[in-house]
């Protein structure tokens, strides 16, 4: 069973590396934000697998915190990308 968890961790880490490739290469900012969002979610599953391998329950608090922080970061980046658009300006008047 432990070997199975290790193999899962290696496979998820390979996926993580692919997301890092998109984060570095991505042609636009939106590509990088999408990759960053997926990296945050992938990091959650890596931490879950790590807590299974080490065998402690104390890492599970990190999962909640990381998912909340990842969502807030994504929302902030989306707002930053969208700012200055014609709809927003008209709605303030």
């Amino acid at each position, binding site marked *: *069973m432990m070997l*199975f*968890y290790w193999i*899962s961790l290696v*496979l*998820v880490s*390979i*996926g*993580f*590396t*692919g*997301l890092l*490739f*998109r984060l570095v290469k991505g042609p*636009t*900012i*939106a*590509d990088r*934000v*999408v*990759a960053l*969002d*997926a990296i945050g*979610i*992938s990091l*959650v*599953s890596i931490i*879950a*697998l790590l*807590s*299974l391998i080490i*065998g402690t*329950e104390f890492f*599970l*608090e990190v*999962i*909640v915190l990381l*998912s*909340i922080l*990842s*969502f807030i970061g*994504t*929302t902030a*980046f*989306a*707002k930053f*990308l*969208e700012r200055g*658009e*014609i*709809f927003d300006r*008209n709605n303030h008047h």
Partner: protein
Amino acid sequence: MRNSLREERFSIETIIINILIIVLMVTGVLFSLVTALGLIRLPDVYTRTHAASKSSTLGVLCILLATFIHFWLIEDIFNTQLIIAIVFLFITAPVGGHLIGRAAYMSGIKVADETVRDDMESAIKEKKEDILNRKAPEE
């Protein structure tokens, strides 16, 4: 004491729990790999958003569920935070993907050449004309 007894017994119950964990974990790992593949191979921000929000949500959901079952049924720890994390991720990850896609369209990123149909363009044009018509009589 109890833990060692449980490991010695190696009952049918343990085997069923392990099969459940393995099925969930394999599904989660496969979806995580599909996410990476989609983010590398797809041609467009919008299609990449589709890959990143849908499949990675299901993948992390399955992995967290497997972790929860492992801690609950094998190590006798009922962890409520994991359930909160599962529900939170299930709600917020698609919302985040939708927000990024909308922001990308509003900041003027072009769709890929293979795109067949773009409903957002006509909707934005309609909305702009609507706002201009509403503003004209006031001034």
